[in-house]
């Protein structure tokens, strides 16, 4: 939906350039899709995308810098997950929700203006 895109453009602000750069690569988009389904280690990702560990580390690094992915090292395994923090998610959701209502109310304004005009024309006769 278009308004979500507008919102993204408005609110991701300075991160946007980094995000675009990160998303301009098919492997990195694939990694994001993969992480959208489940968290994964860098090794898992390297295997899945058939590339070296070093190559995958680079890709994950770019995604991490853009804030699209976070990583956490537990023992010897570095786990990757989508980078949106829960609170940011809620804030972004609320903003989308607000914009949805705002668009609705814009249309409601139009309907109300029209009803007001009609009422003026017909006078306020016979109003209960």
């Amino acid at each position, binding site marked *: 939906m278009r308004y979500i895109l507008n919102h993204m453009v408005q609110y991701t602000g300075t991160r946007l350039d980094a995000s675009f750069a990160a*998303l301009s690569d098919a492997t990195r988009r694939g990694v994001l899709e993969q992480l959208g389904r489940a968290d994964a280690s860098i090794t898992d990702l390297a295997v899945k995308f058939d590339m070296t560990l070093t190559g995958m580390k680079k890709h994950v690094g770019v995604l991490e810098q853009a804030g699209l992915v976070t990583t956490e090292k537990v023992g010897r395994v570095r786990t990757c997950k989508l980078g949106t923090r829960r609170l940011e998610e809620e804030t972004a959701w609320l903003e989308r929700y607000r914009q949805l*209502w705002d668009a609705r109310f814009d249309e409601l304004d139009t309907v109300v203006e029209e*009803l007001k005009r009609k009422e003026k024309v017909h006078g306020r006769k016979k109003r209960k």
Partner: protein
Amino acid sequence: MDVRRESEHTATKNRTTADRKSERELVVTRVINGPARIVFEAFTKPELFKRWWVPKSFGLSLLSCELDVRAGGTYQLMFSHNGSEPMAFFGRYIEVTRHSRLVWTNEEGDDGGAVTTATFEEKGGKTLLVMHDLYPSKEALDAAIASGATSGMPETLEQLDELVVSLGASVGRS
């Protein structure tokens, strides 16, 4: 911010707010430039309601709209997104107080059955509209937010992707 919106009602555009008031409540407010009885009419007459509830920019079409606006009466809205399988939204009016208050249930899907209260408060020919959603539990509201956040993700990425492609193309040209 100095952003002017191009719109036929720029002069009268009021601010919409949306807040999570508590673990279980979402509240949306907006002042509408008209008396409460007119705003109430726009909420309760199907032919008016369907003109504004689904703005064109959403890419959704409202296939049908049945509103039996009285306490205990039901409503049903059928939507379709670009000709896809229709989705039904339905529930029941719990309270109907003419020109001032509407309370209805939301019974579709598994978003935990939120109850919506709309109040219409008239002041000087304008109406303060407050839309209040009460979810049955914190978990239900969290889930509603989480599903909205994740379901938006692939589409948003796809659009970012398109934008990247078009940006790449324009960089190539310059």
